[in-house]
Structure formats: structure tokens, C-alpha cells
């Protein structure tokens, strides 16, 4: 009986989505996105779209076709289509699922069947995820073929996008379901979910900025330390040379130190105090920046990590070496950018910090959030008088 009831709910959900047309619209758009990506190419002259040359300073000598299509997938297919447009379409399509279910006149007939409310709720919830899952399977299959044919690399790992994006969608969907149960309104639940998502986006952006600032501060500290060490080494060599020549060394024997110098090294290299001062400033700046960075990190720990969840796939598909190739050379950084957020070394380090966050932290805490939200939903659904 359980299978029969589950099948009936899934069939009904399919019919509902089918009636809304949005399911097929999203499916067709997904296929179109893959098709457009397939029209992109890379050769020795640069990037092409069909037979047109596009003005991008990238060619197949710099990145391989495999890396090119992987980048197209992660940045455009995954980063733009799946995690934004397709997700919004999926949220719109599924927003009415629970408000419609609990509407007066609808819920009575369903609740009067020999099926527990918990099972009814969870089955209905799963149908929402299946909607997104089907879109993902179609999209990933298309890109898998695209990578194999155009990028000459068969990447089964690409199908990891299905569970990963599904997890990402489920974080938002669970919130939408909760809001749908509370407000009983399709529009309100959709808008509030988008607002929640915007909040997460803001939090992610703040985190990325603070991590970059923190990375820049650490690099500035390291630079200051290195610079001070260099100046001290220069001063030591100067003292050795003076000693070898028998010249008087300030601060030694009865030779006085010049005004402002604290020791012999500072006396022979007047840059040392300035470098020491810079080092102190860099050291002082770190705790202040760490406080805000840590606060944001705690907030993120409690909430679903949409950005990092999607980045898990990029981690899997693009290696650190390939990422280095994409980010370009960081050795010839203009001096004005050194030690700032625009310093490519800071950007790379920030990228490393975010990429090295554990899967347990990214997925585990996000799924825990979803479990808590679903627990509240279940409590509301199971105990409410309709």
C-alpha cells in the first residue's frame, strides 16, 4: 500500500507540474543552455561562438579544451544557470505545492486516507526535489556529452552536480516549505524564500570579502616580516663589512648610537625602524579583522552554505593546478596591489581558505539546518487542525 500511495502522490505531482507547463519550459531551456555552450569553442586564436571569433584574451595554448569546457560548465552552466535561473524556476514551480496541499477543501480528502501525516509530508517534499533532480539529470547528461565530444574528455564526475545542486536546492526548498506551511500563501512563501536566499548571498559575499581582507592582512604581515628580515640581513652584512675594514661600529665599544637608533643594526640601516613599524601595524590589524571574519563564519555555520555547496563540485572537477592556470601568474603583481585584496596572492589564498573548508562543515551543517527546518515543518503539519 505504501508504494501505491507514494506512486499516486508522485504521479499527481508530475501532473501538477505538467499542467503548470513550467516543468517543460525549464527542461527546454536547460537543453538550450547546453546547446549554446556547445556552440562555444576554443582554438589557438581564442574563443569562438559558431564561426565568430570572440574578443577574449584566452586561447588553447593557455588552457586546454577540457579545462575550457569545465570552466564553462562550472561558471556558466553551474554557476549561472543551475544555481540561479533553474533554481528560481524550480522554486516558482514548487512554491504552490504545500500551500495548495493544505488549502481548505484539499487537505481534508488527503488526510482522511490511511497514510500518516509524516509520510504524506515527506513524500510530497520528495516530489519537489524530484522535479529539480530531473532537470539536473537532463542538464548534466547534455553537458557530459558536450565535454566528451567537444572537450574530448569524459567526466563522469560531472554527475556529482546532481546530488550537490539538489542539496543546494533542498536547503532553499525546505525554507520555502516551512514558509508555505506558516503563511499558507504561494506568493509569500516564494518571496520570503528569495529574500532568505538574498540574505545568504549577502552573507557569502561578506564572508568572501572578509576572508580576502584577512588573507591580504596575513600577506601584508608576511611581506612586512620578510622585508624586515631582509633589512636586518643587509644591516648585519654592513656591520660585518665595517668590522672587517676596522671601521667604528655605532653602539659598539664607545661609539655612540645616532639619534633615533635603538641598536647597532638600526644605526647602520635606517629602514629597519620603518619596517618594524610596518610589521607592528600589520600584526595589530590581524586580530581586528579576525573578529569579524570569525563572526561571519559562525553565522554561516548555523545557516545553509549555498555558495560552498556549489563550490564542492568545482573542487572536484578543477584541480588546484588547473585553478592556478586559470588565475594566471601572480608573481608580477603591480606594487600598489601588494598586500591588498586585489593582490592576486591574497585572492589565491582566500580561494584556498574557502576551498579547504571541510565537506563535513559545508554539507553537514547545511543538512543539519535543513533537518531542523523539516522537523519544524513536520511538527506543524502533524499537529495542525485543518
Amino acid at each position: 500500500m505504501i508504494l501505491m500511495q507514494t506512486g499516486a502522490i508522485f504521479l499527481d505531482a508530475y501532473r501538477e507540474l505538467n499542467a503548470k507547463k513550467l516543468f517543460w519550459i525549464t527542461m527546454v531551456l536547460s537543453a538550450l543552455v547546453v546547446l549554446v555552450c556547445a556552440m562555444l569553442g576554443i582554438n589557438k586564436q581564442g574563443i569562438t561562438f559558431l564561426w565568430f571569433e570572440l574578443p577574449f584574451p584566452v586561447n588553447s595554448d593557455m588552457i586546454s579544451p577540457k579545462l575550457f569546457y569545465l570552466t564553462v560548465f562550472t561558471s556558466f552552466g553551474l554557476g549561472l544557470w543551475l544555481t540561479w535561473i533553474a533554481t528560481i524556476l524550480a522554486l516558482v514551480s514548487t512554491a504552490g505545492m504545500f500551500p495548495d496541499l493544505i488549502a481548505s477543501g484539499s487537505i481534508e480528502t488527503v488526510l482522511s486516507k490511511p497514510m500518516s501525516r509524516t509520510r504524506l509530508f515527506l513524500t510530497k517534499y520528495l516530489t519537489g526535489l524530484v522535479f529539480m533532480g530531473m532537470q539536473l539529470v537532463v542538464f548534466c547528461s547534455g553537458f557530459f556529452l558536450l565535454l566528451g565530444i567537444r572537450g574530448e574528455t569524459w567526466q563522469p564526475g560531472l554527475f556529482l552536480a546532481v546530488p550537490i545542486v539538489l542539496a543546494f536546492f533542498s536547503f532553499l526548498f525546505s525554507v520555502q516549505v516551512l514558509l508555505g506551511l506558516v503563511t499558507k500563501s504561494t506568493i509569500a512563501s516564494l518571496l520570503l524564500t528569495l529574500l532568505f536566499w538574498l540574505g545568504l548571498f549577502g552573507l557569502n559575499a561578506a564572508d568572501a570579502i572578509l576572508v580576502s581582507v584577512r588573507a591580504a592582512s596575513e600577506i601584508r604581515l608576511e611581506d612586512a616580516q620578510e622585508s624586515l628580515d631582509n633589512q636586518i640581513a643587509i644591516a648585519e652584512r654592513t656591520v660585518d663589512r665595517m668590522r672587517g675594514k676596522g671601521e667604528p661600529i655605532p653602539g659598539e665599544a664607545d661609539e655612540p648610537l645616532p639619534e633615533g637608533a635603538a641598536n647597532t643594526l638600526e644605526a647602520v640601516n635606517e629602514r629597519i625602524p620603518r619596517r618594524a613599524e610596518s610589521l607592528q601595524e600589520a600584526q595589530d590589524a590581524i586580530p581586528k579583522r579576525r573578529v569579524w571574519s570569525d563572526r561571519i563564519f559562525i553565522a554561516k555555520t548555523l545557516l545553509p552554505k549555498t555558495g560552498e555547496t556549489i563550490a564542492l563540485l568545482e573542487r572536484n572537477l578543477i584541480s588546484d593546478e588547473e585553478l592556478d592556470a586559470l588565475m594566471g601568474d601572480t608573481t608580477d603583481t603591480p606594487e600598489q596591489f601588494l598586500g591588498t585584496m586585489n593582490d592576486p596572492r591574497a585572492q589565491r589564498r582566500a580561494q584556498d581558505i574557502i576551498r579547504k573548508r571541510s565537506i563535513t562543515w559545508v554539507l553537514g551543517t547545511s543538512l543539519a539546518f535543513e533537518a531542523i527546518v523539516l522537523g519544524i515543518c513536520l511538527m506543524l503539519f502533524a499537529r495542525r487542525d485543518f
Partner: protein
Amino acid sequence: MTAAIDVQQVEKMYRGKIHALRGVDMRVERGEVFGLLGPNGAGKSTLVKILMTVISPTKCQGTMLGKPIGHKATLANVGYLPEHHRFPEYLTGAQIVDYFGALAGTPRAERKRRIGEMLDLVGMGRWADTKIKQYSKGMRQRVGIAQAMINDPDLILMDEPTDGVDPVGRKDIRDVVRTIRDRGKTVLINSHLLSELEMVCDRVAIMVQGEVRQQGSLDDLTEPHRRYEVSFVGDDQSAAALLAGMEGVSVEAGIASIPTEDPNRIQPVIDCLRASQIVVKGVRAYRPSLEQLFLDAVGEDSGPGAGPNKHSRMHMEARP
């Protein structure tokens, strides 16, 4: 065999404020059509929803089909037509019956066989493959009844089944209810349309302000109110004086009421009136309608004069 529904002391308090049910006792026997009556807000729908696990009771004892109230598996053997139901607009009549049949646990093969049968029974066979959004309210109601019967339940609860249905449709629904009863099923109907209930119900319960005020067969309930009425031409006071010695006889508006079902007991009244040259216009056996019973029960609660209660009308007793 246990009763189809046998509940005692059902109470429902909403959010600790509204006392919707105040200890309802009700018994529905197997194989009967049972009518649940009551004014708006009496708690009828709340009681039905408690039986169907849509609402959780504050307190409830009793059984439905021999199992405790709230026992989910029992619902596989119960059909339910909610009031103001809203079926998915994107489904056809046949798909709705099939969907709810599957949720009720009816095997696919049986559903396939019964869908046509049930839709034909409610007169919707021709529109089985038409989307419900194109149905009139009456058609939706018929499909609602079909879905309530798809699992061949032993007990069917119908909340306002004739709501929005035209007179011809109402008759059809009454016929369906009789057919269901003839198949040995039990039907509980919650309705405002008393004349409809009177035509099909074996027994009724009248609910007022969360309590069952009266319960029983129509014969049982009307028995205390049955009487003979002798209408005459003349003034009430003279007639009342003439009939003062006869036990229980009252006179009002040119009618002498004799609380009996025995025609022999009215002969002395007629003789007495005729002996005094009072012209007897007619004699009729009076049995109150369900509507009058209902209004009595509701009126009792509202107090004298508050409602259309026959007891609240001016009443002149014959005195010796």
C-alpha cells in the same frame, strides 16, 4: 457486530478558547443512513473531521468500524466527501477517483474496474475524461461522491453532499445513498437540507452548540409530538371550555389537538364539538417534520421567542 461509529464524550477546544464540541455521544449502527443535523457552528463538521483524523480531539473515546478513533488503517475502509472540497483542477474526473482510490489503498486492477462503475453510478460516466475545471459545482459534487466510494468502503461520511446540486441532482444523490445502503454500507450525512435527510435517513442526531440534543429514528423522535388535530369553526374559548374535561386536549387557532395516535380517542372530542353545534371542518393525523424537530431543538437553546419554535407561539391550554 460493533456499531459503525460509537463515540462518547468527544470534546474539542480550539486554542483553549472556543469549545467546539462539549462531550458528544453518538452511535451509528451498521447498514443505516444516519443524518447529522445542526445549525452553523454546532460542531458537525468538527465531529466529522475528528472521525476522519483531519482534526485532533481534545478528548475522545469510542470506535469507528470497531477500531479506536484515529486508527489510520481503518480509514482504508471509510469514504469521505468533505464540505467545500477542492479537487486538483488539472485532473479529470476519472483521474481524481483513481488518485484518491490509490491513496485509500485500493489495488490498481480494482480501481480500474470500479472507476467507470462509480462514475456511472453518480451519473458522471460521460464526463470521466473531462478536466474538473470544466465541471459545474454539481458535477464536482458527484465526482466527490464517486471518489468517496472508490475503495468500496463499509462507511461513508458525506459533508453536505447536495450542496450546490440542482433538484434533479439531489434526487440522484438520494438514490445513490439508498443504493449504498442497499449494498449494506453505512452512510453518515451531515446536511442543512432537512427535507433531503428526512427522505433518506433512518436515524438522525441533532447537534446544537457542540452537543447532541436529540438522537434516534425519526419515529422515535416524532413519537412524543404525534397527535390528531380537529379543526372547527367557532371561538377557541368556547371549544376549550367544552373540552376541558378531556385529558391533554388543547385548543389553539380553531384547532383542537389531541396527543394520541389512537383514532378512537378523538371520537369523543368530535362528538362533544358536534353536540354543541360546532362545525368540524377536518381531522388530520399530525406528525412533525424533521425540520420542526430541528427547529425545536435549536429553539430550546435560543430561549422562548428567540427562534421559530412552536412552543414559543401563544398556546392556550384547555382547562377544566
